[in-house]
């Protein structure tokens, strides 16, 4: 009974994805047939998304990867710097500034949409040239939630670790780079994975900011091609499959780090 529930729900979560793989290798006339294994499997849909469509899969993939990587690096740097300062350094106005950061978590992206767009237009970043990428980097440059997560994690690192280095005369900067940062590897990994996933999967900002088809990301490409192909499902499913594989790989590889951090931050209570 217990196992049947587990297996039943796993079927519900996994089978649709197997179906997308199956549909992506079906010829068009088999798409609505209920067989999971195609009678005449074909890679035509993959040939289409790699070659015929404009922009092709390679372009969409490169854009998604480029944007996600830059945003991950920005989030890591700013979260580590601010998180450390708020957790360990004493300076006037610290608590008030941290309160401002917490307040930033309350500002939804949808409220930012209009003023952000106006600002980007004024900065001439809404264009079809390469500076258009800067628009998305600016929009996503920093995350209050990541700063908060980082600070919470730094607070759990025992002060004794720093004391020895302090006696040796290490200043706040050395303490940060030699002691705190190496000990924060799990939370850095978590922020990296979650930011990568969030940026890779995001549809909202790319659909608003990115102007040229050559800048589209995978989710934005799926939205556009879904409209163009309407009922030609195999190529769309090929895009669905290809855009999900990197995230799946990332999670298979990085899953344990995420769970560790969630546990340690909640154990602290």
């Amino acid at each position: 009974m217990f196992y049947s529930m587990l297996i039943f729900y796993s079927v519900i979560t996994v089978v649709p994805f197997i179906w997308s793989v199956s549909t992506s290798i079906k010829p068009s006339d088999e798409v609505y047939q209920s067989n999971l294994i195609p009678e005449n499997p074909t890679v035509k849909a993959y040939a289409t998304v790699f070659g015929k469509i404009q922009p092709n899969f390679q372009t969409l993939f490169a854009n998604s990867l480029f944007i996600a990587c830059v945003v991950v690096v920005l989030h890591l740097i700013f979260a580590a710097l601010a998180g450390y300062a708020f957790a360990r350094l004493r300076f006037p106005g610290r608590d008030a500034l941290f309160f401002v950061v917490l307040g930033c978590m309350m500002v939804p992206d949808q409220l930012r949409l209009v003023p952000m767009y106006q600002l980007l237009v004024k900065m001439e970043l809404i264009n079809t040239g390469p500076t258009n990428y800067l628009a998305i980097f600016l929009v996503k440059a920093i995350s209050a939630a990541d700063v908060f997560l980082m600070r919470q994690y730094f607070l759990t690192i025992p002060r004794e670790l720093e004391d020895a280095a302090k006696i040796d005369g290490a200043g706040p900067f050395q303490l940060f780079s030699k002691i705190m940062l190496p000990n924060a590897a799990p939370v850095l990994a978590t922020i990296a994975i979650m930011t990568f996933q969030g940026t890779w999967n995001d549809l909202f900002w790319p659909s608003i900011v990115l102007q040229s088809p050559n800048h589209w990301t995978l989710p934005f490409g799926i939205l556009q091609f879904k409209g163009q192909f309407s009922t030609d499902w195999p190529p769309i499913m090929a895009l669905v499959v290809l855009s999900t594989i990197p995230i799946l790989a990332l999670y298979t590889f990085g899953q344990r780090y995420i769970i560790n951090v969630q546990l340690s931050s909640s154990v602290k209570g």
Partner: protein
Amino acid sequence: MQSSKKHSYRLSRKKSEILVGYGFISIPMALFLFLSVGIFFYAIYISTYDWGLIGPTENVGLDNYRRALSDPIFLKAIRNSLKYALLVVPIQSALGLFLALLVNSKIKGSKFFRSAFYFPSIASSAAITTLFIFLMAPDGVFNGMLKFFGVDVSNLFNQGAWLSDSRTALYSIIGLNAWTTSGTMMLFYLANLQTVDSQYREAAITDGASRRQVFWYITMPLLKPAHFFVVTTGMIGALQLYDQAILAGGADGSPDYSLMTMVLYIYNACFRKFEFGYASAIGVILFVIIFSLTILQKFIFGSSAWRGEN
């Protein structure tokens, strides 16, 4: 002499701490002040103007807000968003809790099931919604399965086109997102479950409590931090529904505005009608709704839930 040297060392240490502190937060704080705080007030400023493609023309006070609250399509969008949030949040939370309890027990393969249940949460909404639209098509797999179990929907309504019928479209999206988010909710509950001391449960069982009593009187109250977190983040996410709506119903939230959400409405006002002042007012209204619901939840769950999460 010795002590004054030590004193000055401490002073310089304090000074360098202040300097490094401000140095470290300078760029992050500048970005926050610019990208969140400044933008927040800019949004309110824009919302009081008649602001088109050529920029602001006239300060109209609260006219944009009045206009929004008298537009039937916007009211429909609010109703849709609230209806969606009020249905999807309890379903995804309950499902998340149920899944967490399932995989929390020490059974063979619990790791596999955990990954399987989390799987729909990691894919992009664009990919998963597209897949969902395919599965829910009139001739799609879902209707085929219903037929297999003896339920033929093709005569019931619109040939079983779940997403093209205004009576079923929103509920279909609720089903979709309950399915995709329950994995994330499961993880939050799991993290909380693992901090719950099993001795409370054991003590209750020794005292003769039934399993049902243990669940309702011991486990549920101890999961309060997770309840708060899951409901709050779920509610905020639900009110921001956009991806699934535009993918399934296009920018109009078709059919018949049944998938028109508040965010989709902002998108339309902004990029199809180029009424930026009006769009900004809707953004402010959305913020006020989200903000007040979050505060309300804080009161419902009590202040201890906040501390529990920190």
